């Protein structure tokens, strides 16, 4: 089955061109040119992935991103003309998984989309445990479930992948570059802020006190690692 893509962009030429490229690459695109109608279209289309322009008429891309994220973990990739730190970080903090800077090459875009659609479905019946022994985080990989202190924690697929990547090698320290490659699928070094922002988001969900993390630990000057089981 072809993956469905919802393209939220007000530029009709770009949308049409995206449609041509996506269709020829095996996606099934749907379009909405207006921020205020984006959420309704999202509910109707039920896409596998969302391409979202940050600068939209109606509601801003940031708002659209927040409202989609509020009801679904569907991967969101921002299309942005701005590379300024503030804009990118704001977009990522509002829930986007990744971003592509205009002008992008078609291959670059579809590679980013495929990386987000790729799932960990190889591991059979795997269960991982990390975190402090008195309050461990247990991850049921095939069921896509994370439980801590008897409560289920709802993570987006990206956050789940990030947690699983760390939990699979609990003693290993991951540099941001390695995480970018394993979780986001970047082959060359990319923006390490992606990692920082999503680690913060992950911590805000799994940690008891995000200021003093026990599950996802920072190794100063190197990167991150899972807390000892």
């Amino acid at each position, binding site marked *: 089955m072809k993956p469905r893509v919802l393209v939220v962009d007000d*530029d009709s*030429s*770009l949308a049409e*061109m*995206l449609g*041509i*490229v996506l269709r*020829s690459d095996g996606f099934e695109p749907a379009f909405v040119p207006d921020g205020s109608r984006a959420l309704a279209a999202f509910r109707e289309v039920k896409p596998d992935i969302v391409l979202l322009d940050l600068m939209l008429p109606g509601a801003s891309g940031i708002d659209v991103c927040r409202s989609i994220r509020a009801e679904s973990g569907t991967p969101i990739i921002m*299309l942005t*003309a*701005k*590379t*300024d*730190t503030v804009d990118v970080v704001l977009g990522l903090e509002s829930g986007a998984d990744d971003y592509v800077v*205009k*002008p*992008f*090459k*078609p*291959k670059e875009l579809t590679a980013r989309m495929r990386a987000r659609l790729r799932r960990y479905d190889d591991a059979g019946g795997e269960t991982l445990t990390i975190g402090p022994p008195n309050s461990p985080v247990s991850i049921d990989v095939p069921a896509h479930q994370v439980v801590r202190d008897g409560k289920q924690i709802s993570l987006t697929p990206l956050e789940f992948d990030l947690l699983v990547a760390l939990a699979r090698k609990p003693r290993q320290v991951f540099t941001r570059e390695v995480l970018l490659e394993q979780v986001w699928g970047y082959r060359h*070094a990319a923006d390490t802020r992606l990692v920082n922002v999503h680690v913060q988001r992950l911590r805000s969900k799994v940690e008891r006190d995000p200021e003093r993390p026990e599950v996802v630990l920072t190794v100063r*000057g190197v990167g991150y690692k899972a807390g000892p089981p």
Partner: protein
Amino acid sequence: MTDAQPAAGPAKPAAGHQGNGPRYFWLRAWQALQPVLNRLLSAWRRSLQLRVATSTALVTGVVVLLIGLFLISQIGSGVLKAKRESSIAQATLGQDAATSQFAGLSPGDLNGIRQAVDQITADTAATAGVTDLYSRVVLSTDDAVNAVLTVRQPIPRSLRREVEKGAVAMQYAKVRVGNSEQPGLIVGQPMNTSAGAFELYYLFPLTAEQQTLNLVRQTVLVAGLALVLLVAVIATLVTRWVVLPVRVAAQTAERLASGDLAQRIPVSGEDDIALLGTSFNDMAISLQQQIQRLEKLSRLQQRFTSDVSHELRTPLTTIRMAGELLYASRADFAPELARSAELLNNELDRFESLLAELLEISRYDAGVASLEAERVDVLGIVERAVQASEVLARRHQVQLLALVGNQPVLAELDARRVERILRNLIGNALDHAEGRPVEVTVGYDQDTVAISVRDYGVGLRPGEAALVFNRFWRGDPSRSRLTGGTGLGLAISLEDARLHNGWLQAWGERGKGSVFRLTLPRTAGDTVTSSPLPLVPAPVVPYVVRPAYPPATDEAGNAEVHR
């Protein structure tokens, strides 16, 4: 204001003058005085008020002193002149009465003479207690006669000699009054009697005159001092009126200069000082308007560049994708169309990098570029930059060598920016290498890390080393470029280096190649004072292409060649 301060410090007395010699005392005194003197001098230099008040007081003091001295001497001589005249008149009047006392006496009658003299001198007792007190003394020219006479007051020799010559004479001398000596006037005259030649002296104490003069002196002194003080106070107040607004103006100007353009001087009245304030404020207003206008223009300009760059991106994305699509299917096109698709694709790459660099430089111009420094291994950045340039090196058929040690070199850097600088420098070197190798060398010391990129290609003409960092500067417009450089790369690299407080310098010689050296502080925020790598390579020999490049060794002897 310490420039005039002599080299102070505990001056040690020379051996032998240990502790208590007079020289040591003066030295100690000088040392103790020096800070006070220095403070006074500095206050003198700094305060216009102090200078004006002091100099006015000094000039007034001199004038008042001269006037005072003149007054005292005038009054003194006037008083004494009157006294002198009255004294002579009195003495002359008394002569006949005195002569008559000697009537009928012969020169040998010593007893009679003594009685007569006592009679004359005793008369003064009657006048005792009166203010204008005087006493008389009679002396004979014959010392034998003088021996029997009672002389109550000493008469100066010099006066006696004058009188013995036979004239009326006078002299100021000490006169005994009671038990004390007072300044006085003595008038002497010769007296010829039947009993022989005598001298008659009138002694007038000048006590009253002295008191008058003292009073005058005191009055003049007090009045003079009061006058000097008054003038000093007036001068201080007047200068204060002038100096205070000037100080306010100076402070305001300082605040204006430090960027607070809203500063104004409070103006009241319509005098010269108010005029100064008004003019100053007008100047400040005009300055503020000019600066605001320029700031606005500059903001608009930067905003425009940034907006244009952003707005161009969306249509460029569509064009890019369309171009890619055409390029991917160029095998199905006729040769002209296929070549067009290729050209379109290549130029889109160039257009895109130009746009990105324009945006980057507008960010620097707007002053919004920020350093995101992290502690990283510089060798890792060098390796990444070299690897990223391998494709270009192969296209140029140029050997790209990284001469780095194997110890990590940690430094607080913005890795993204440093890598961009290196890729720029390497790309630039490959562009101009003319088939000869390009070397990337890393050197470091305690505080700095340096990376130099050396090529043995066309090099630079004299004076060009300063121009290469200019925007859109082209060394040789006729040269074709494989990279299609935007002309902004080195300008951005220079800004990137400056953001790190680092150096980016170029050296080049025609036909001998060029060196671009980047020197960065290893701690973010530090400044660079020297570089661990030389900018000018020595000795400069034109590179000869050999079939196999021998392994190179860096200064530390750690040979490591990356291909």
